[in-house]
């Protein structure tokens, strides 16, 4: 029971991580809920092996990304082009334009492959290329190459989307 309490308390402090991964990988609310549940279950099963030599957040990222990447939906759905749900408040200056850009970029990210999404997620969380490489099981050099390619892809897709909107 002590272990369960400890796990729940740690997870409650870090549940934003799980939510971020679910938001990134699933576009439908019901799918997000399923993935959320699956990540929690996988984390709980693996929790006894968490020894605290890594940060809980890093460990939880690993569990969440492994689960999201190997999570399989039988029925294929079209990738979300743009997610138009609740949006956070943006700075007042050029509010519309910035919001549009963020929306376009977010849409472009949602069209990436599962692996590229994981790389972007860890990059946004300010992990170094070495740390990302360690989590993904590839070299830091490979991460750098992939990130450059992803940046270009995102730039192109975002520009196309913004051009269509204008």
């Amino acid at each position: 029971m002590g272990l369960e309490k400890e796990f729940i308390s740690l997870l409650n402090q870090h549940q934003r991580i799980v939510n971020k991964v679910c938001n990134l990988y699933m576009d439908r609310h019901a799918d997000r809920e399923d993935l959320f549940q699956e990540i929690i279950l996988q984390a709980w099963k693996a929790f006894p092996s968490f020894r605290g030599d890594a940060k809980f957040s890093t460990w939880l990222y690993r569990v969440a990304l492994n689960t999201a990447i190997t999570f399989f939906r039988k029925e294929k759905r079209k990738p979300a082009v743009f997610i138009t749900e609740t949006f956070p408040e943006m700075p007042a200056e050029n509010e519309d334009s910035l919001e549009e850009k963020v929306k376009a970029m977010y849409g472009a990210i949602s069209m990436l492959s599962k692996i590229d999404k994981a790389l972007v997620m860890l990059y946004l969380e300010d992990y170094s290329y070495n740390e990302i490489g360690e989590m993904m099981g590839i070299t830091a050099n490979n991460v750098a190459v992939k990130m450059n390619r992803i940046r270009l892809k995102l730039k192109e897709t975002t520009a196309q989307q913004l051009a269509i909107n204008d």
Partner: protein
Amino acid sequence: MELDELKSQLKEKLATDHTGRSDADIAFLLRAKTNSVIGKLKKSLRKEIFLGVLVLLPLGYIGIASEYRSLRIYFSVTAVLCAAFLGLLIYLIKRINRLSVDILPVSRNLTEIVRIIEEFIRRYFQFTMALVPVCLIFAFFLGYHEPKHIDGLDHFVQLQLDARWKLWLVVIYLIGFTVLVYYFTKWYLRKLYGNYLAELKECMKELTIE
């Protein structure tokens, strides 16, 4: 528009749109059922082990206690094959358990899952195909050489058919049954895990290409 320019806004966007869960909600989720393919594979392995043990007991009993020599040999061989398959299923369950406890890097995790599923598919197929000669050729051979009379078998032997026709009937039956089992097993396994394996391999390929 660069990714880095929008980093903080994107982080903020990703963190929104979620329901905050209470401790009780999370505690409830810990008792929920898994939806992952590997979780379902584990569940199906458990069921197969249970059914395997259930089948193994009568097979072993007949293999020892039957009055017919052919049935004793037939059921003993089938029981040995079943026991070997059960051993493999237990080994696969252990590998899945280890996988859910060790949090591996993404690429190793993908490799492990692919290996487990491929091993399951390969062995399942081998086991099914190994049962074909045991069920058919071996059974015919043993039945033919059975010193005692077996009613059903004797009925077939005594059918008023030409010996050549009887042979053709047996050969067509053997080939038809083997082909059916071969394609059905392949189709069934591909239907269960084919798409998932293809998706995982695609992720693995993407990770390894620089």
